[in-house]
């Protein structure tokens, strides 16, 4: 079914700290078709209406994680959000909430990456590697199937209410990364991984509000991963292994 061309009003957050003006929303009328995405509309604005607009994008196929932004009340990837599916005459776009704004829709991700680095985000092996690959059964591989799909777009990080008020909280993306290695049959970091997250800035700060899971554009559940980590931590504590 083809939807006839129509004009949609885009309200886009604008802010350039160099200009000494308060943030504002600019309004643009963009003609769209059935399949037009929010990212395509932003390019339309940049190319034909306002060359000073700033936003991040790259792959336009929901794999690079660049274009996460706050679109009609939810964190989404602009590239995989079809405007018709928003079912609204108006599209309101703001930068990811609770992150410092560099310009317009571009946010400062330094805090996000700092948390990522805190969970030792790499495979740790303690015994000598074999000449060939580490063997891993298909079933063991399935245990990490979901966690490895994270594209680090920060939709979850920015929607997590616990991350808003506790700046030290690792947050859903870093904890999902931690779980990715805890669940990997090849990883030999053992208890050390759990110690990194078994504290008030780690898994126990999660209050299972599920914002992260709801906003994940890849359909992942950081909440599930965090609960799995909690379970493992609890078991180790209860059995005096930790």
């Amino acid at each position: 079914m083809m939807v006839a061309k129509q004009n949609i009003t885009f309200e886009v957050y604008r802010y350039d700290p160099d200009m000494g003006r308060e943030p504002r929303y600019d309004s643009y009328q963009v003609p769209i078709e059935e399949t037009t995405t929010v990212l395509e509309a932003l390019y339309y604005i940049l190319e034909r209406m306002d060359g000073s607009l700033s936003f991040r994008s790259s792959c336009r196929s929901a794999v690079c994680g660049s274009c996460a932004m706050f679109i009609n009340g939810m964190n989404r990837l602009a590239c995989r959000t079809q405007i018709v599916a928003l079912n609204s005459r108006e599209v309101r776009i703001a930068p990811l909430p609770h992150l410092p704004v560099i310009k317009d829709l571009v946010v400062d991700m330094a805090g996000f990456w700092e948390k990522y680095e805190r969970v030792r985000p790499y495979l740790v092996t303690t015994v000598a590697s074999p000449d060939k690959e580490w063997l891993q059964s298909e079933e063991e591989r399935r245990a990490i199937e979901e966690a490895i799909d994270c594209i680090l777009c920060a939709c979850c990080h920015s929607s997590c209410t616990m991350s808003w008020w506790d700046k030290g909280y690792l947050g859903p993306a870093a904890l999902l990364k931690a779980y990715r290695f805890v669940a990997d049959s090849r990883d030999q970091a053992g208890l050390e991984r759990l110690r990194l997250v078994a504290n008030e800035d780690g898994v126990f700060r999660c209050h299972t509000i599920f914002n992260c899971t709801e906003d994940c554009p890849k359909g992942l559940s950081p909440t599930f991963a965090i609960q799995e980590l909690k379970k493992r931590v609890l078991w180790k504590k209860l059995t005096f292994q930790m």
Partner: protein
Amino acid sequence: MIYHQVIVVGGGLAGLRAALEAAPQVDTAVLSLVHPVRSHSGAAQGGINAALANMEACKDDNPEKHAFDTIKGSDFLADQDAVEIMTREGPACIIELEHWGVPFSRTPQGKIAQRPFGGAGYPRTCYAADKTGLYILHTMYEQVVKCGVRVYDEWAVLSLIRDGDTCRGVVAMHLPTGQIEAFQAEAVIFATGGAGRIYSNSTNSHICTGDGMFIAYHAGVPLKDMEFIQFHPTALLRTNILITEGARGEGGYLVNRLGERFMEKYAPKAMELAPRDIVSRSIQTEINEGRGFEDGCVHLDLRHLGREKILERLPGIRAIAMDFAGVDPIEKPIPIHPGQHYTMGGIDCNYHGETVLNGFYAAGECACVSVHGANRLGGNSLLETVVFGKLSGARAAEFVRGKASSQGDAKAVERALARVVAETEKLRSADGNEDPVSLRLEMQKTMADKVGIFRTKQELAEGLAAIQALQKRYREIRLNGRQKRFNLDLLRSWELKGMLDLSEAVVAGALAREESRGSHSRTDFPKRDDVNWLKHTLAFHTPAGARLGYKPVTITRFQPEERKY
């Protein structure tokens, strides 16, 4: 001014691999236009080739057979010594990736699983579902974090610093602030990716604008074999998003409007798994001759694979087909057509990444070693990034260790910085009558229409004239974004100049090459001509445009033969 012994430009797989090799030996930093995990390597889907012989069906495979398939796939334009090195290094590089944590899909015995790919004699493509590039890129970045390699992200490199015949560093702009800075170095490695976005119908990310290629070209380093542009057979209708060759590797069919598996006419043995140049020409022929569907596509049909296999092996392209074409491949065929996908050509270098400029190296898609010749096999680009990333990183580190530091002499660096700052400010305030967006669209359409899958002298001549006219009009452009911070208009307008020059090199090479070889298919010269054209094209940048030269192909033990599949 910032100083590192080695500066790697590009945060994709080739760049990160180069940095991981050099960093333990010498002070190394990575400059990247985007955060490394945003790089286009992450969009690679189907897999990475290496003769691991991990499955019953490929137990007789070996690097030599991999080399032969690659060379035959290249239509004998690849340099055979480089191909042999790549295929020999392949298995160890894959094992290294696995040891770093890449979550490869597994065989029932727990080994790295391998799937069939186009032009390969055995299932040789190691894969991780259909998100192999994403997983390798994230794993490689994890290693960069582990090793503490310094990464400067969101820095757009604007120029090489050249001091006589020596490279002294780069000048770059920090996008978030607009600040322009010189990075002095003893060695610079470019791993900046391809130039797909000179075409309107590219599968590539928005960032694939060929920056490193044209920066090197403008600095006097020749480009090689630029006329060889790969069109991937299966780009999604409308958006041109890649649908992996792995879909055919897993058994997918290509079907025309009449319901025919038409590949049996073109490649009766290999069918859908013929090399990409052949499959793309076949699809385009079906469409041109009226056997495509009405919106100019054919169908990639996966339904017979069944729900379970699609969910396990091809979940990524299922999501893409659903999100961007409204089609669930479990229930309906995917509408596809060929789309620009890869630049076989690039910065002229050898298998150490060395170029004509001392201390300047290239690796990955921006480089032309050449291992892909006139047509790259699927699964060989990821392999190229890790093998030649590693080798160029090693060679650059060796070069730096063997020379005296030039940190005290900054004259050339300061001159370059002053020049780039002046040029950038001039561009920022450009106030002519030409809209850079229109020029960009015209360039992309010209390349797609005149320099596409099938080429003729007349169309190429028209294309060259059109690109040259755009180059003239570029001098009169007008910018709309004038701010310092994250100025996309400035970045894109600056890139446009280089993209036009790259386009010119592509068309000029294609117009001159009067034969058909691999991806370069001249309907007016339908045969390969080894007597006159078994040679690499070189393009040199001059004020008057691209000047062409040629150099021989290295042949070791595989004599050119007819390509049949």
